[in-house]
């Protein structure tokens, strides 16, 4: 930096010249990051430098890890700084522990400066920043392969960590808040593999099996050894098991007023049932999923009521028209059930049983047959 000074020179008898006196710069520290500082946080500080002479200067930052009281070394702060710098802006990472191993409770920052002509700022600036314990971090998620249905397990995962205490020293507490109807539930541990690529975090798992519908709230609290806690909520809307829908059938069901002519032995079948939990054909290898069940019934001429075909509980029925007289009109009916719907809610006189909540879904089909 170029020196700017006036020179006074003696130009004649009785006159003399002199250099003006170099003045000291003044400095200040401004904390531009959050006032609340935790161990492991990044603190950003800015130096305010002013030289009355307008000359530039040199800054010198030093930061020391401290405690509120003396540690085993007998000092409040470490003698060795953990940060040094010369830039106008200093970004320092608050250490977790002092050299003696005790947790850092404060940071002492010292800023010194001198101008280009060697004048040092006086006094040097000091800033003591209180440091708090770092809060645990907590992240929740839920997984269910079968939707969120009453009676079906939901896997819950809480991924947690703690910058200064480490995840191993964080305690996790789970609390389930049921809907207002207070249905039963179970919450059991779920083993979660350790992620070797992320040692800073641990994931804990629980399996929640809600037994009722409604808005469920799972509250998880992560607490570190000094009692600093982080709390997260997981809202789960649990729905009822929906009724099964007959999704495909053979042969065709005649429209109202028409009959299906049965001229030979015919296999009536429902190859496909759509359901959230109990499908057909059965799903394999999933302990949660089940199989839809079926009931077949028949209304024959002259019979007072529809008769359930005892034992016919498969998805197909071999119908032999020879057991009837040609010209007879026979109604053959199939209904599909699941674990939550062992019956249909429709009147027997209805040929189908539409599921109001699912357009196009029916739990029942009725073939009106003409024996030929």
């Amino acid at each position, binding site marked *: 930096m170029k020196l700017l000074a006036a020179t006074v020179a003696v130009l004649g008898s009785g006159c003399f010249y002199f250099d003006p006196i170099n003045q000291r710069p003044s400095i200040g520290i401004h904390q531009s990051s959050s006032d609340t500082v935790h161990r492991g946080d990044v603190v950003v500080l800015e130096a305010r430098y002013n030289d009355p002479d307008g000359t530039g200067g040199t800054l010198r930052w030093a930061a020391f890890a401290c405690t509120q009281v003396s540690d085993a070394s007998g000092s409040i702060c470490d003698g060795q700084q953990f940060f040094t710098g010369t830039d106008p802006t200093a970004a320092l990472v608050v250490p977790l522990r002092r050299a003696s191993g005790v947790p850092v409770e404060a940071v002492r920052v010292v800023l010194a400066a001198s101008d280009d002509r060697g004048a040092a700022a006086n006094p040097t600036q000091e800033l003591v920043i209180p440091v708090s314990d770092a809060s645990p971090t907590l992240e929740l998620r839920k997984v269910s392969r079968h939707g969120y249905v009453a009676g079906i397990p939901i896997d819950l995962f809480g991924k947690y960590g703690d910058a200064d205490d480490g995840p191993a020293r964080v305690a996790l507490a789970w609390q389930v808040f049921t809907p207002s109807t207070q249905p039963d539930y179970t919450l059991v541990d779920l083993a979660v593999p350790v992620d070797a690529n992320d040692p800073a975090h641990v994931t804990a798992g629980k399996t929640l099996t809600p037994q009722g519908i409604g808005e469920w709230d799972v509250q998880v609290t992560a607490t570190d050894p000094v009692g600093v806690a982080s709390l997260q909520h997981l809202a789960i809307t649990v729905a009822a098991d929906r009724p099964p829908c007959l999704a495909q059938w053979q042969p065709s069901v005649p429209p109202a007023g*028409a009959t299906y002519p049965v001229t030979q032995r015919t296999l009536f079948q429902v190859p496909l049932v759509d359901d959230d939990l109990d499908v057909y054909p059965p799903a394999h290898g999933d302990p949660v999923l089940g199989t839809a069940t079926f009931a077949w019934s028949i209304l024959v001429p002259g019979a007072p009521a529809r008769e359930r075909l005892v034992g016919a509980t498969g998805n197909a029925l071999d119908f032999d028209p020879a057991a009837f007289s040609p010209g007879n009109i026979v109604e053959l009916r199939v209904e599909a059930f699941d674990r939550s719907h062992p019956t249909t809610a429709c009147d027997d006189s209805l040929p189908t049983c539409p599921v109001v909540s699912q357009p196009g879904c029916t739990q029942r089909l009725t073939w009106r047959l003409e024996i030929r």
Partner: protein
Amino acid sequence: MRLAVLAIALAGCGLNASGLDGSPGDAGGGDSCRAALSFDPPIPIAGPATTLRVASQVTDVPGVLEYHWQAWLDGAPIGFTPAQADGSQIVILASAPGVYRVDLDITGAAVPCSTVTASINVGAPGAHSAVMRLRVVPAASVAAPPLERLVEVDGGSNASLGIVALDRGTLATAQVVGQGGGAPAYVRFSPDGAPGAVVEAFADASGNLSARLRPEPHTVTIIPSAAGIAPRRIPGWSPASHQLAVDAGAAITGTVRDPANAAVAGAKVQLRLGRSATFDGVPSTLATTAADGSFTVRAVTGIAGDVVVEVTPAAASELPRLLATSTAPDLSAPLVIKYSLGRTSLAGTRILRQGSPVPGAKLMVVGALGAVGSVTPGTWATTGEARIAITADAAGKLPGALVPAAALSAVITVGAGDLAVAAFDATAGPPASLDAPAMQPFTTVALDPGGVVLGGAVLELAPTGALELAGVPGGHLVAGPSGTVTSALVAGGRYDLRFRDPGGRAAPLVVAARGAASVAASYHLPAAVTLTGTVLLDGMQPLAGAAVQLLCEACTGVERDRAISESSTDAAGRFALAAPDPGTM
């Protein structure tokens, strides 16, 4: 011909394209990376020294390419060795049969390359093969006709069927037109290329119908519901044609007389024309005999095949159903159908259980009879089926019902779900009593070919003989975790035991005509191989929720529609079926 799948995978489009029997796939790709895989040999057979060379062909992709391979056998990862210095080819040891799949990721290209996937079936040495039918039926909410095609299943190895393309077909609109205009009817469309992929429709009161059909000629069967119009079968009908013409057909007349030559009134008479081993025939209209025993049906004559006359007398007549078959009937002259059979009254026969009468027992006396009458003119072979319902009185005695003097069976209903079968010979007069033993319990265990229990296996009890004639429904049982099935069978009854494993661990097993006493303690279901594939609608869109069935090719009648194995497609259109293993030499 073996089934082999050579899949040529496309990078950049997100879908695999497969060709059968080594046919090349389309290696499209637009502006993105164009890459394909090929196998050598294209139809490999597993062996200790069998190797599969997999080569990648990457075109129009600038950059220094790096190849990252992975290989699987039936879903389990396997090793491979590089076969080119640049890594563009690998060699896999194919010592075991099954579906070999490779994935290839290409890096270093100037344009992004998606993972390329291809698979190939490696057959077992000396494999037997069996032809089966694959049927795919979309969910009712999807407007597309069903698909049916033959598949050849090779023994000893799982196989991929590759892409199964389901076509939406064309929306055919047609009108069933009779002499007086449009006529309501049931209409059955059977495509000539895949007769089993049937589409059914109902023409409304104006005869109008619409159906989504395969774009090919169909054989159409029309059964009008309006009186006086004869059912008709139309071969070679095109979906582009909008008319299905029907008419009154020819009048066929006749009379029905009982063994005493008295007119049989109220009997139902119907003919089937063109019957064959594989076709049940086109029905005539249905007639009811008048007081003088006369009838008139209308039918389309001149159809090649047998003609069958079916006479079902009213229940009060106590006459059996008569079926008469002729290969060359004369239908121009009135048919004279005359019953000639001896009959026995069951009056006084007592129904007993363990020596005690069964008051109010309900009987269905059934029997498959020989000749029960004659039909003239012409040469007709007649048979009969007896189905006579009788109810015992409060003392367990039967009223004076007449039954054919023949070997018969009584299916006795003692109570709900409590039945018994009593065989008796009515040729020598009525039996003094018929015994109705209690239902007989049985227990059996379903095992896989290796003797491992098959929890969740299904046992269908299909009644045969007397129970079948009486229309007794079958049973559906599911094995517990130990593979054990426990239930009760009708004493004296016979059943076909139909085992199947929904888990695909074994193939179905049918054990014919078993009574409770002859059910074995356990049954080993035969070995299965797994067939996999992907159903695409219009060759592009994965079709979820479609029913996929494997069906018998050689079967006829109702067995032709009974699934050997069934599955459904997942969100990606994929399915897996367990097929009976044809075995190896």
